[in-house]
């Protein structure tokens, strides 16, 4: 393995890792912080729902689905950029 190759792998992993950190931060927001503060959010109304309830039964779920698809789209870009896709 040449050193430039190793360098490219290094940078690929750095980008992958940073993307993962961003995803995990958003995950924590929708999976932990928002459900925890459902009571405060309930004073708002969304689509006729109390917002806190809405987030626990639909909003966070939709966020998870979108999060995974966006992460995969971005990860594919990163893999292609460094020529390491399979």
């Amino acid at each position, binding site marked *: 393995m040449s050193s430039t190759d190793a360098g490219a792998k290094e940078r690929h*992993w750095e980008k992958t890792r940073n993307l993962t950190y961003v995803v*995990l931060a958003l*995950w924590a927001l929708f999976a932990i912080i928002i*459900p*925890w*503060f459902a009571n405060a959010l309930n004073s708002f*109304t969304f689509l006729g729902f109390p917002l806190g309830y809405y987030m626990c039964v639909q909003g966070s*779920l939709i966020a998870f689905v979108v999060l995974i698809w966006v992460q995969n789209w971005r990860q594919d870009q990163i893999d292609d950029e460094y*020529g390491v*896709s399979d």
Partner: protein
Amino acid sequence: MSTQNGKSRSFVDNLGKVYALYTLGFLVFFAFMALLERMGLSAQAIGICFLMFTIAIYAIIGWLSRTAEVDAYYVAGREVPALYNGMATAADWMSGASFVALAGGVYFGGYPYLGFIVGWTGGYVLVNSLLAPYLRKFGCYTVPDFIGTRYGGNTARLCAVIVLVVASFTYVTAQINATGTIAAQTLGIPFELGVYLGLLGIFICSMLGGMRGVTWTQVAQYIVLIIAYLVPIIWMSNKQGFGLIPHFSYGEAIHRIAELEAQFGLQPAAEAVPGVAVLTTPQNEPAGQGWKMVSLAICMMAGTASLPHILMRYFTTPSVRAARRSVGWSLFFIFLLYFSAPALATLTKLQLLDPNLPTAVIGKAFEEVSNLAWVQHWSSVGMLAVVDQSGDGIVQLNEFFMRPDIVVLATPEIAGLPYVISGLVAAGGLAAAMSTADGLLLAIANALSHDLYYKIIDPRADTARRLIVARVLLLFIGLAAAFIASLKLTGILGAVAWAFDFACSGLFFPLVLGVWWKRANRAGAIAGMMGGFLVGTWYLYMVYNGLMEPWFGIDHIRFGIIGMPVSLVAMVVVSLLTPAPSKEIQDMVDEVRIPHGATILAAGH
């Protein structure tokens, strides 16, 4: 073998056509049954037809998928496209607990139980970003295969096998219990017989074709279960005036239920009736319950990312990219059911409580309610009770007793839908429980046959022998699980929550750090697996038996909150106190992190 490969290749190319035809066939069967009901076919006969028809289809798929190849048996030949692997994972994932018990949990448990909804979906973000693509690149057959190769040595492998077996076995008894309950209910046979009948169906799907057979039956089971879950909701919503798709418009019902709860009062029953419960928890009252909800969600999410029967589904895709994409599809297909469950719970509650609806029972005359056909049907099997404890001749909210597990199964009858819908729901519940039991039994049998027998006991065993051992183990584990299930030790939802707690206590950090921390070594992994697993189990034992006050309100269904930190600390401390892993192992981890190139473990290993 080449003809078999050619045959399976053309099958994979035509998946779209095959399953479209299958779905159409199922809908035609449904319409045909509806017609027969009009012509006077009895409710029981309809139920039997639904169960027999669907099981026969699964059996045919299982027979057609039979195989004698190791790769096909363990990882379905690694040729399952992302979309179909997503459906199979969704069926594998959504068990009797999701299908039968979840809506009941939301109905009776209120806000804290929404932790199941958030937890069982949010976990997939962890699966996708931390594990699935990397484990696929690894090329392992089982989860302990990864642990054993990454950390080296039979002890680490054995620890992983132990945690896997305990978690999955706890889970599978609950599924076989659910299978037995549905079979017994619908066919009118004793529960114990229902359990073994359900087991027979499970064997037909998994014995001959291993992972390949399970994959293609799970796709078929997903289609049945999602139709069965959505049809009653849409039908009921139309009757109540919430439109064709109630999911975005039932917000008003939440407000209305809060009004009605205040009006009727959420009082405990004057006198408890064993096995059934009255509604005492408000639908939407999160004040001061944040920790209760979030601690449950965290256990379920970390458990999702450590349960081997889910992780091994991502070993079956053709590439790393396909593995990631199939996690996206999995969560989408799971989401369809999970965002419907609270809608179902809410609409069912509303139609029992709201005096403006013709189906309401609360506040009605006692005589009238106890003569309703569905009240009599479910009372006769001890899953419902209406008792006039106050003696005023009116059914009060705290005089209407129900078993939470029946909310989904009884809803079509409560709403006055034709019986053909109940038959459909029973078939859906059976599909959900069977598909999960298949995946779990296979995970256990594969870990024992591949990791314990082939890798540790007899590494020289040939292919035929390995596959025979795998099937014999499958048979015995299934029988043992059915035996335990027939003893009816635990409820469905509780046992399932325990399985997640066992898995996340023992496996979450050893798996994640195996990819994300090169410094993690064998001694650390063993300490992490055993430390988390044993401390978690000890806490469960102490709290469940009342030998100790729960810490910070962490009860027995959330013991992963105790096990996980112990596992993390033990793993990090012991890893740092012992020498770093070898250069080869560290290079292997580097290799796992890029999708490109050959898998770490060769096919047929």
